[in-house]
């Protein structure tokens, strides 16, 4: 039973990503990105990673989609004829993608990948909150600095001098 859910999720993930890449209109692409995020969230829940899943949902499916949609709203003006031309162009360039993916999928499935390693079993230290706040201080500092950098970037790029 579990395995069936996993198969549906995995195939859904790939199909959502392919639809995002192949669709003509930019807005539908962004919606496809959000759907891919949601499927990834469900996959992460199934893989016992709830905190990361919630983060992915709120940030990627929410914030990033909002950023993309607002930027598309500020830049896109397409007429209908342009749309038809675009559609034909897109199909001719992107038809190769599903073919490549099917071949790659079959090849990877039958590849014997040596991925079994002997590891010590995980210590009791498996609480995400503990790890972030107590063990990986350097990453925390890095996140603070990069958020500062992003803030300055927005000021530099947008403020009228």
């Amino acid at each position: 039973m579990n395995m069936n859910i996993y198969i549906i999720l995995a195939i859904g993930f790939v199909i959502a990503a392919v639809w995002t890449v192949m669709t003509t209109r930019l807005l539908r692409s962004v919606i496809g990105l959000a759907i891919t995020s949601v499927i990834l969230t469900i996959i992460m829940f199934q893989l016992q990673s709830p905190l990361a899943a919630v983060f992915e949902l709120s940030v990627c499916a929410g914030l990033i989609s909002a950023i993309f949609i607002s930027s598309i709203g500020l830049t896109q003006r397409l007429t209908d004829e342009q749309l038809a031309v675009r559609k034909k162009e897109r199909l001719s360039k992107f038809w190769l993608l599903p073919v490549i993916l099917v071949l790659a999928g079959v090849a990877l499935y039958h590849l014997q990948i040596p991925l079994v390693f002997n590891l010590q079993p995980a210590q009791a230290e498996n609480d995400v909150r503990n790890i972030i706040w107590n063990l990986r201080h350097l990453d925390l500092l890095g996140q603070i600095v990069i958020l500062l950098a992003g803030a300055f970037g927005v000021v530099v790029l947008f403020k009228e001098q």
Partner: protein
Amino acid sequence: MLSLLLLLPLLAILILNLPLKNVMQRMAVWAGVLLSLWQVTAVFILAMGLGERTEIPAKFKFGLNCDNLTLVLLLSIGIVVFTTILVGRQTISNPRQRLGFVNLVLIAMTGMNGTVMLTDLFSLYVFIEITAVSSFILIASQRDINGLEGAFKYIVLSASATVMMLLSISILLMAAGGTSFATVGNAVRQSSGNSMVLFAVGVFICGLFIKGGLVPFHGWLPAAYSAAPPAVSVLLAGIATKASGIYALIRLTTSVFAGNDSLNNVLLLVGVISILVGAFAALGQSDFKRMLAYSSISQVGYIILGLGCGTPLGIVGAVFHLFNHSIFKTLLFVNSAAVEKQSGTTDMNKLGGLGARMPVTSATSLIAFLSTAGVPPLAGFWSKLIIVIALWQNDLRVYAVIAVLASILTLAYLLLMQRKVFFGILGEGLQNVREAGFGIVLPASVLAAITVIVGVFFPLMFNSILMPISSFLK
């Protein structure tokens, strides 16, 4: 002591952004200059053994480590940031823009300081990204169309490199159960025949090649270096690419991914191709900054060549050449900033005869390019000599010969540049060009002096300062 190098710039940024607008705009440049000078002093304090070399876990468990390789990089970072801020003060006239510039340069400095001191593979990714993001913003900061395009190209290629590094980290996480250098190093050594681990190592190294701007992954470099505002080019070419990509290559190939013969062969090949492609491409350029960008690719090829040699002498040569390159390439870009600001163009066909009007710039540029080409007794000659000797001793004679021949090519294109820009007939419309201001002339003279002093006193320094650098190899 080490965490201060990370936390002080952050504190400075917080203070600079308090709501005291006018005071802060005037203080910004001084804050940056003081911080970089403090960093240079800190390097000497640490080198003499007076400070704490490893981070003792008190409240912040940063896990920082500082050995001799780190000290060389920290020194380079301090010198180049000092130069960048002074050049920025000269070339950016709007005080509000200057404040934004200093803020971003300080963030880049935090990123680079963190990169060279950390001991964890994932934190390496985090801090390389900090340097990269501040570089993107700096390149695009003047909002001209060339800068924006250069920045976008850099973003796309840098993000691809990031994806490759993270893919590799996830495979190594499965093999090692952790991400620190020690854990991953043990795991790689224990599973030495495993094809997935080799794949992960190869993919990570490819990602670092992209970040370091080595051929054939150098597509973003000429566009980014030449389209950036003049002060930003100084920072990028001087240290930002090297302190992230090249330092990571040196650190990882000597400790974490060590002992792999095929890895050394790949490094030798990539190094020699970079030297040749960079040199030949530089010959055909008519834009001053693009030529210097290709020259950077070529010189970084020498560093990788020394690294691929594998012997302690080769690696010492590589690290010494890294330091020298950050000095003389920064000097060349400072002079290009001076020329660009005073004459308004970087097209070598339109420039000419500036030697009489900009004497200091012309003289320091001459010193810089002689050092780049490896002319004795300047510093560049010694570092190239060490690399060539190391290659010869290791029976890699073909590479040594190519390295020497490429030096001649380097001399050729740089001589061409010097002749076109500084000697010869005065170009049109350039009658009113005067020497650049104090803010550019001072760092240029300091950098030229460093190159000359290091070159002349080299024989004294060899055993006492240089060979101990290899102590970081276990």
